[in-house]
C-alpha cells in the first residue's frame, strides 16, 4: 500500500504552470508554509514554459509513479490535462484543481473527477480592471492593450472580461491591442511603438503585471507618465510598489498565497478522509 512505499511522511504534489512567474512562486510559498505547519512533505514541480501542457502532463504521469497521496494541479490546459487527471484517478490519487479550472465537460466525458476547485475567475478580474478604467476615465478614453502569449488561455480570459466591461461604455475605444508575450522587455518595445502610432492614448491595460511594469518604464521614457493610467494583473510586489509610488494606477489581486494555503489544507483533509467543498472561491480584489 502507498504509505509504506512513500516513506514516513505523506507526500503531496503541487504542479503549477511554471515557476518562472511570481504568481506561482507566491502560491508555492503559501503552500509550503501550510505544509510545514501540517507536517506534510510537499513536492512542487512545473514545466519550464507556461504553455507547455504536454510537459506538465509528463510531470503528472511521473508523480503518479512517485505514488504521491494527493495531486494539487494548476493545469496549463484545462481540457488537455484531462487524460492525466484520469490517470491519477485510476491510481486512486485525489486531484485538486487550483487557480485554473479543469474543463468539466471534458472531464466527465473522460470519466475523471476533481475533488475540489480552489481559485478565482480571471474573466471576473478582467471585468474588474475594465470597470475601474471606465470609472476613472469617466467613460471616455483611448485604450491600449498588451495581450499575453498568443493563444494563452489565462491572458485571453482576462482580455475577454476587460473587453466586456468596456463594451458597456461606448466612449471607451481600444485603439491598439498588441501581444508582448507576458515579457517585460517586449512590453517596453511594444508600448513605445504603440505610443508612436497613437499619441492620444489615455489608458493601458496589460494582461499581467510583468508587462504592465515594462509599459510604465516605456511611458515614463516618453514623458507621458501623467497622461496615461496603467492597469495590470496579479498584484506582484513590484506592481504594488509602483502603485504606491503612483507610477501605476491599479492591478488585480488574486492572492495566490491564499490559494496555495487552502490547497494544502484541502489535501490534508482528503488524506484524513474528511469531506471537502467542491468549490472553494478565493477572493479577488482591485489594488489601487
Amino acid at each position, binding site marked *: 500500500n502507498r504509505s509504506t512505499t512513500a516513506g514516513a511522511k505523506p507526500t503531496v504534489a503541487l504542479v503549477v504552470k511554471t515557476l518562472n512567474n511570481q504568481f506561482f512562486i507566491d502560491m508555492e510559498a503559501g503552500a509550503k508554509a501550510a505544509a510545514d505547519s501540517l507536517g506534510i512533505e510537499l513536492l512542487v514541480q512545473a514545466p519550464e*514554459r507556461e504553455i507547455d*501542457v504536454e510537459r506538465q502532463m509528463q*510531470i503528472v504521469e*511521473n508523480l503518479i*509513479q*512517485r505514488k504521491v497521496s494527493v495531486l494539487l494541479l494548476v493545469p496549463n*490546459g484545462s481540457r*488537455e490535462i484531462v487524460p492525466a487527471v484520469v490517470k491519477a484517478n485510476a491510481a486512486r490519487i485525489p486531484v485538486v484543481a487550483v487557480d485554473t479550472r479543469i474543463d468539466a465537460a471534458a472531464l466527465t466525458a473522460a470519466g475523471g473527477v476533481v475533488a475540489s476547485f480552489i481559485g478565482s475567475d480571471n474573466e471576473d478580474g478582467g471585468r474588474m480592471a475594465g470597470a475601474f478604467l471606465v470609472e476613472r476615465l469617466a467613460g471616455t478614453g483611448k485604450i491600449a492593450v498588451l495581450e499575453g502569449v498568443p*493563444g494563452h488561455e489565462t491572458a*485571453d480570459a482576462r482580455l475577454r472580461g476587460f473587453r466586456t466591461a468596456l463594451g458597456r461604455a461606448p466612449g471607451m475605444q481600444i485603439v491598439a491591442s498588441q501581444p508582448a508575450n507576458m515579457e517585460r522587455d517586449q512590453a517596453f518595445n511594444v508600448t513605445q511603438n504603440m505610443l508612436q502610432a497613437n499619441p492620444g492614448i489615455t489608458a493601458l491595460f496589460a494582461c499581467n503585471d510583468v508587462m504592465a511594469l515594462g509599459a510604465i518604464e516605456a511611458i515614463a521614457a516618453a514623458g507621458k507618465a501623467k497622461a496615461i493610467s496603467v492597469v495590470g494583473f496579479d498584484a506582484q510586489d513590484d506592481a504594488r510598489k509602483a502603485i504606491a509610488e503612483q507610477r501605476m494606477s491599479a492591478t488585480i489581486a488574486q492572492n495566490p498565497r491564499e490559494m496555495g494555503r487552502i490547497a494544502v489544507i484541502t489535501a490534508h483533509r482528503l488524506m484524513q478522509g474528511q469531506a471537502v467543498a467542491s468549490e472553494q472561491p478565493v477572493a479577488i480584489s482591485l489594488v489601487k
Partner: protein
Amino acid sequence: MIARTTLRRMARGREAGTLLGLVLLCVALWIATPFFATTENLANVAEQSAIVGVIAIGMTCVILTGGIDLSVGSLVALSGIVIGVSLQRGIPLVISVTLGLLAGVAAGTLNGIMITLGKLPPFIATLGMMSVARGAALMLSDGRPISDFPAGLRMIATGVIAGIPAPVLLMLALYAFTWFMLTRTVPGRYFYAIGGNEEATALSGIDVRFWKTAVYAISGLSAGLCSVLLVARLNSAQPVAGIGYELDAIAAVVIGGTSLLGGTGSVIGTLIGALIMSVLRNGLNLLGVSSYLQQVAIGAVIIIAVLIDMALRRRVQRSPR
C-alpha cells in the same frame, strides 16, 4: 547479417558511448529511487520519449545531410491544427489526418526548395518557417485550442498492444524503418554522401537538390506524425504546441552521436539520445528535484553524455583498425 553489421558499428563505438551514458543514468536512478525501475514507470518513460523521439527521426536525416530544421516545433502545431480544423468541418478522420501530414510535408518541401533553389542557409530558411508556420497555426485556429477528437484517434495514444503502449510501438517501427532506409537503401546512402561531401556527390551525377528537398519533406512528415501522437495524447490540437521541440530533437540527435557537420551518425543513436532525455526528466520528477535545479541537471547531463560519447569514440579511433 543486418544485426551483425549493427553490432559491428556499435563496437566501432558510434553508439556505444551514448548507450553507456543511458545505462549509467538508469543504474544511478535505479539506486536513487524505488519508483524508477518499475515496469509501469519504464513503460511511462518510453511513452514520454515518443513525442520528441518521432521528430528526432526526421531531424536525424536532415542533420546527416549537413542541414538543420528549426521549424519542426511549429510544424507540429500547424499539422495538429489542420487535423483539428478538418475534423470540425466534418471531414472523415482518416482524410483529416492525411491532410495534417500533408501540411507537414508541404511546409517541409517548401523549406527544402528555399534551401536548394533559393540557396538559403538551412538555419535561416527553417527559422523563418518556424515563425511563419506558428503564425499560420494561430490564424487557422484563432489562437484557441481545438478539442474533443474521435475515439479512433485517441486510441493511437491510449492503445496498448502486447503490453506495450501504442505510441512506443509506432516510434520503434518508424526507427526500424528509418534505420533500414539509411543503411540499406540508395536514398539513405545519398543522405550520408551529401552530408560528407556535397560537391563530390553532385559531381558523381546525383541530383543533390532533389534529395536535399526530400530530406526536409521527410522532416516535415515526421513533425506531422509527432503531432498526430500529441493530438491523440492531449485530445486537443493547440496552436502553441511544440514550442522548443526543435532543440530537444536536435539534442537527442547530437547526444546520439550524429555530427552537426553531416555525413556521420545513425538513427539508432538518436533513439538512445531521446531515451536519455526522457529518462532524465522522469528521474528528476521522481526524485522531486526543484524545477530550477532540474534545468541545471538537464543541461549538465546533456553535456556529460556527449563528453562520454566523444571520449569513447576517440579511444576507439586510436586503436588500430
